[in-house]
């Protein structure tokens, strides 16, 4: 690398630069300049005083240092550093308080846990899977509550990464074997596991029917009821 003389020349320049955080970058840049020049002198057969000449070509350390200092103003430098720090902190805070809850709600939130166990009359494990284009819907559970609420728990995913985003659509018309049709409230947003609740579902019905027929796409799911294990 550079001899003590070359190092001292660069240190002299840097001594005029008050904003110490920029010194290292300046040092690297000036060093590589000197080394390039030394190499050129050496190749030209002037190896002996190559470094000496390279330093002379650079000019006066004080003049260079003072001019560099004007461009590396400590005030501007500190404002810049603090601004960046503030941005980093904001990003961290944002990730922590906004991003994390979204991620945990996506990963951990099973809507079954939203239903109070004391209210459950029965809980049937279903495991029926249907396909709508590239979307796979898997009905997991049907939970009947003492107040007449029937909860249909299902998850869905796209088999294609560029899936059509079916999630906006409903799961179909919900009825029972007695011919009653029910309105199912909206699902759980962007969560992968969705709970739909039908109010006042007949406790006499023994089959839940989910009938989908939209845009020429059809499926029909029949789920036997009352066969579930009573929740203690």
């Amino acid at each position, binding site marked *: 690398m550079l001899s003590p003389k070359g190092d001292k020349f660069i240190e002299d320049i840097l001594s005029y630069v008050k904003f110490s955080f920029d010194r290292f970058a300046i040092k690297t840049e000036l060093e*590589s*300049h000197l080394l390039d*020049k030394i190499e050129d002198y050496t190749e030209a057969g002037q190896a002996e005083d190559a470094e000496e000449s390279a330093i002379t070509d*650079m000019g*006066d350390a004080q*003049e*260079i240092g003072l001019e560099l200092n*004007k461009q590396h103003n400590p005030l501007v430098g500190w404002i810049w550093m603090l601004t960046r720090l503030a941005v980093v902190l904001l990003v961290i805070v944002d990730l922590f308080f906004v991003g994390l809850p979204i991620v945990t709600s996506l990963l951990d939130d099973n809507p079954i846990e939203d239903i109070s166990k004391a209210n459950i009359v029965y809980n049937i494990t279903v495991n029926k899977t249907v396909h709508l284009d590239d979307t796979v819907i898997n009905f997991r559970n049907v939970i009947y509550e003492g107040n007449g609420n029937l909860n249909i728990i299902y998850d869905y995913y796209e088999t294609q990464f560029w899936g059509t985003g079916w999630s906006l659509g409903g799961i179909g018309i919900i009825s029972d074997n007695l011919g009653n049709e029910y309105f199912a409230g909206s699902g759980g947003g962007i969560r992968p596991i969705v709970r739909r609740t039908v109010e006042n579902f007949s406790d006499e019905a023994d089959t839940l029917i989910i009938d989908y027929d939209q845009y020429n796409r059809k499926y029909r799911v029949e789920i036997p009821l009352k066969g579930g294990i009573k929740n203690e």
Partner: protein
Amino acid sequence: MKIDKGLLGGSTLLLLLSLLAENDRYGYEIIKELELRSDSTFQFKEGTLYPVLHKLENNGYVKSYMAKGDAGKERKYYQITSKGKKQLVEEKKQWQIYSMAVNKVIGGDAHAFA
């Protein structure tokens, strides 16, 4: 600005931006290119180039990045920005007007810019 005089005179900006408009370059490369193309007319204290480059960067005419060149050495390269390109057009215009005017004054109409 004093440094302009120290370096190449008032045309510093024009020369540097012109070279950077062709290619991204590092400091020493700029100096060699200036010397080569001007048949060593432009000789100056090389260290004074860096405050000028840093000023261009502060003004947003260029930006810099670290990269390894052909020899595998890591160097600080300067790249002209769109603001720098606009400024270059402006500087070129001013230079032509200036040199035309000088030529007229010294009676060298024949050598004036077309």
